[in-house]
């Protein structure tokens, strides 16, 4: 059997957590390894945990340490963790705020179980999953902050052709193996390119790469919307 995706739920509403756990664990490949009712509980658990989980489902509004602050701390302590924001707020500023913190996805609490499960699977496989609303909000955001973007993007040598090609494939939700096959180069090389990309764009993960590409017109929102 393939390895299960290990998930931590962080939400202050116990009944909500147990509902989500019930639904997720009906899927044979999903396993909830821990539940926390606020950011502090999560951090305490991670400090002692032998192994990091694959995915964290993070509520935003919680007592003690809320989801935004917790995600910030995770970014410095465990940058490799993939966080999915799970919130009752669906407004622009909340979404953008979390995207800027590098979350791999943002879904609202009344999403259907299918949407939640799909999001978790995609984030696990590709490192990010943004629905139409989120993509549109990320895309709109670039208008507000034009000129502040990294100047070197305009430099034609900013990305090599190869890097650009790989960035495009990442945005289109291909994983390393698939890109390697399509471009007939080794997965190892792809990984090197990807790391260079993250360094150049100052992204902490694949999700950050996609946000960067979208906001700097390296890929158009139409292309991304066509796929989903």
């Amino acid at each position, binding site marked *: 059997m393939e390895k299960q995706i290990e998930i931590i739920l962080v939400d202050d509403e116990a009944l*909500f957590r147990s509902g989500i756990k019930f639904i997720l664990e009906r899927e044979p490949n999903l396993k909830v390894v821990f539940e926390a009712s606020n950011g502090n509980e999560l951090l305490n658990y991670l400090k002692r945990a032998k192994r990091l989980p694959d995915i964290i489902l993070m509520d935003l509004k919680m007592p003690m340490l809320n989801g935004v602050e917790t995600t910030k701390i995770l970014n410095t302590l465990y940058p490799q963790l993939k966080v999915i924001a799970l919130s009752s707020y669906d407004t622009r500023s909340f979404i953008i705020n979390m995207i800027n913190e590098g979350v791999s996805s943002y879904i609202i609490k009344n999403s259907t179980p299918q949407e939640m499960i799909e999001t978790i699977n995609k984030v696990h496989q590709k490192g990010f999953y943004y629905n139409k609303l989120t993509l549109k909000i990320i895309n709109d955001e670039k208008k507000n902050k034009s000129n502040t973007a990294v100047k070197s993007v305009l430099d034609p040598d900013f990305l090599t052709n190869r890097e650009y090609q790989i960035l495009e494939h990442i945005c289109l939700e291909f994983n390393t193996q698939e890109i390697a096959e399509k471009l007939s180069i080794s997965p190892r090389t792809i990984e090197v390119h990807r790391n260079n990309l993250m360094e150049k764009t100052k992204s902490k993960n694949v999700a950050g790469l996609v946000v960067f590409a979208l906001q700097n017109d390296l890929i158009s929102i139409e292309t991304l919307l066509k796929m989903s």
Partner: protein
Amino acid sequence: MENIENVEIIRVIIYIFFAFILMGSAVLVFVYFSRKKIIEQKIKNREKEIAHQKTLINAIIETQEKERNRIAQDLHDDISSGLNVVAINCYMLKTPNLDYNEQLKITNTILELTNKVLQSSRRIAHDLLPPVIDKFGLHEGIKELVENINNIGQLQIKYNNHLNFDDLAHEKHLHVFRILQELINNSLKHSEANTITIDFNQDSDGIKLHYSDNGKGFDVTNSVHKKGLGMKNIESRISLLQAKLTVDSKLNQGTHFLIHF
């Protein structure tokens, strides 16, 4: 001789004439300046009044914002998150192959939560405007308020009403109710009293509301007690009611409010 006398007379007349003119202008100048002073004083008073009105308006706005904030919180915490869990549980019910016990458990959770959400929405609506005032009038509204506080048990309220509130214009009822709520809140929060009395009566002077607690009182003249919003709100309602408020309180001798409608 005559000529000289005439000249003298004319001179006296001229002096008198000038003396009058001088006095006249002195009076004019005096009147002018004192008028100016009076007007300046009036302007000053007016400015003071306007400044006071402004603080009252600010107090109203600030209170409203606080209220809205609280309602938004309540809606989010109690209603939205409750309904989120209800939705999740409905999805759970839809999953195939549930056994009877699982179904029963989920259904019970849904029922329980629905009841809780219902209660919350009722409470939020009630906080906004107790429906009893609208349906059964101010007297019943105050009775309910008093009963609710007495049930908590921190202190006891004695409520006496010797008048028919129908004599009080209907649009004034809510103001009276809000003033009482605020006064009671203050007694609960600041006074350490164990008894409050609320007394409405009417005499040839008009309608009077006596409110007192037997708590520790406060120094009415001390400005440290002017920072809150509560008393400002009461003041603005009093001025809307065109009523008069007298506060009488001394340290350790309770607090007495008289509102004269």
